[in-house]
């Protein structure tokens, strides 16, 4: 018995050494939204370089928290870290943290109005009014004027939002804050907010489920979720005045429209971005990478990964319904990568 357990211990020790030798292990945690493409990227990168990257999709907030506390090597978030969080990171770790956009996502308005089968058009004023509770009927002129020829009923609107903290809510409320001063003042933006009206559904599937079941309802879901599950959604009027339906091209265009004013640290919101066909409720998702690594091998592997992901790795994006980074942003990121030391 004793000999057997001794052997087992030895076997485990050897296995541990074997794992450690076969490649580097990097740990990350954060956003759930980019998880499908991240796991594909990590898998491909593992095959080509041998470095293994573990990623826990625990949510943007938890990702920021874990990377700040140093329990993981890098984080990932759907919303950029705010100044307070950056300061907290610096005090705790004695160094800064950098944001690297990887792919793009968008939030789309989806609805269930009896008698309406086609796609509805939404102006920013209509969306803000509906979610503030000011526009309470489907046949309100703010909605009807953008949808000439559609027979909208005189029914009460039921607003449905996400109940769980979410990057999608962040994008949605960030957009509403930009287009409505009232929204900015009364509700503002965040992964969870104090909603003036409406019911909460858990996750994209919870929101979609509630909308399907509730006549006269409107809500928002991630573009990827809507595309993969064939959830019908409406168009949104962008800053150029065009009604744009969200798709990979219009989301990418929002990113290139915003790239001219892209700050050095990439912490930028691209909602309501300029560009004739830019979809206005779009956003980057970011990797959060410390400026300084203690372990040089880890640093090099991490830098190589980011470099690969934003160049060759972008080829995987569209098959998984993520919009690709525009070239201007990639070039800028490649330059910024040298800041990681």
């Amino acid at each position, binding site marked *: 018995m004793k000999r057997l357990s001794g052997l087992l211990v030895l076997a485990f020790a050897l296995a541990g050494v074997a794992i450690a030798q076969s490649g580097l292990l990097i740990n990350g945690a954060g956003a759930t939204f980019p998880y499908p493409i991240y796991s594909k990227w990590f898998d491909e990168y593992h095959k080509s370089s041998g470095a293994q990257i573990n990623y826990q999709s625990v949510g*943007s907030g938890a990702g920021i928290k874990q990377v700040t506390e140093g329990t993981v090597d890098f984080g990932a978030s759907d919303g950029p870290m705010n100044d307070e969080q950056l300061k907290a990171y610096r005090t705790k770790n004695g160094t800064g943290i950098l944001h690297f956009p990887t792919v793009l996502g968008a939030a789309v308005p989806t609805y269930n109005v009896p008698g309406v089968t086609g796609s509805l058009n939404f102006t920013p004023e209509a969306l803000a009014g509906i979610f503030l509770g000011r526009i309470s009927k489907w046949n309100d002129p703010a909605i009807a004027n953008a949808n000439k020829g559609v027979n909208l009923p005189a029914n009460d609107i039921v607003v449905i939002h996400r109940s769980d903290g979410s990057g999608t809510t962040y994008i949605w409320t960030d957009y509403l804050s930009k287009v409505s001063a009232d929204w900015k003042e009364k509700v503002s933006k965040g992964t969870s907010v104090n909603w003036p009206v409406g019911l*909460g559904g858990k996750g994209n599937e919870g929101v979609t489920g509630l909308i399907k079941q509730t006549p006269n309802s409107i809500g928002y879901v991630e573009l990827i979720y809507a595309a993969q599950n064939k959830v019908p959604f409406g168009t949104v009027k962008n800053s150029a005045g065009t009604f744009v339906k969200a798709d990979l091209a219009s989301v990418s265009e929002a990113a290139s429209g915003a790239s001219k004013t892209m700050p050095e640290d990439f912490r930028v919101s691209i909602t309501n971005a300029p560009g004739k066909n830019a979809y206005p409720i779009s956003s980057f998702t970011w990797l959060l990478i410390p400026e300084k690594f203690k372990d040089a091998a880890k640093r090099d592997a991490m830098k190589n990964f980011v470099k690969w992901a934003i160049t060759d790795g972008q080829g995987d994006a569209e098959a998984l319904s993520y919009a690709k980074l525009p070239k201007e942003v990639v070039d800028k990121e490649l330059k910024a990568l040298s800041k990681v030391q």
Partner: protein
Amino acid sequence: MATSSINVPSAGPAEASRSFLSRLRDGDEIARLVTFIFAASVVLLTALLIYELWIASPLPRQKFGLAFFVTKLWDPVADQYGALAFVYGTVATSTVALLIAVPLGIGAAIFLAELAPQKLSDPLQFFIDLLAAVPSVIYGVLGVFIVIPLMRSVIAPVLKTTLGFLPPFQGPAYGVGVLTAGIVLAIMVIPYIISVSREVLLSVPRDQREAALALGSTRWEATWKVVVPFARTGIMGSIFLALARALGETMAVTMVIGNTPTISSSLFAPGYSIAAVIANEFTEATGDLYLQALIQLGLVLFLLTFILNGLARLLMLLTASRGGGTGRA
């Protein structure tokens, strides 16, 4: 003795019987100690839980103090947190659940234990035990696809026409809401009440029944006036179990309650429970105050469970002394 010494290999027969006796004596001590540690660990674990929740949430205590319990604003953007709406949602849904589940559950248990023939009672009990083991997310799905549409098209309109003069049954019914969550919770806790109550009723000594019947009572009188009062403590225990499950249920509730921190006089209105908000917002909670407010909500749920259980126990003591008296008379 001979068979037990076989179980002691490696020792001689004479020594074995002696060491067996002494080990038995020692074993008593060991068993006492070990079981004491097990029992004490439960108390320790509870204390540790409260302690951990307490030390992990100093910020909201400093900032809001007792106001945390009496304000209902929950605004993560402005960093303002109050627990009242969640406390209301938790208590209201659990109350609705128990109001529905207790009479149904105890009635079913009486039928299964006292009235139904064994041929019917045993297979039924099997299904009830099966129901108790169904994961809560399944009940949530049941709620979403069956109870919500039913609530909107049948239950709410019927309640409005019959009881619509009462405030709890007024206002728009979206399908999701406090009443829906209460109904789904009731469905979830009924198997617990039936299972435990039936066991307790079955364990009532036969002579109690026979004595009542011998005194000329009908079968129902014997059941209702003798057997049920005798089993009262155990039945109450099943209700505690149901209450505990209802208070802490997360997944099924969040799927049907509407997740809106409001307090409304209407049971059709959406609400929010403590467990549901913690599950929903914990992963994306950024900022220390936000996170700690959620942890403090956990502490509030803990206290709420204590208080409600204490009240229920008090109620039991009060009714038990009364009921026991009439039972014996």
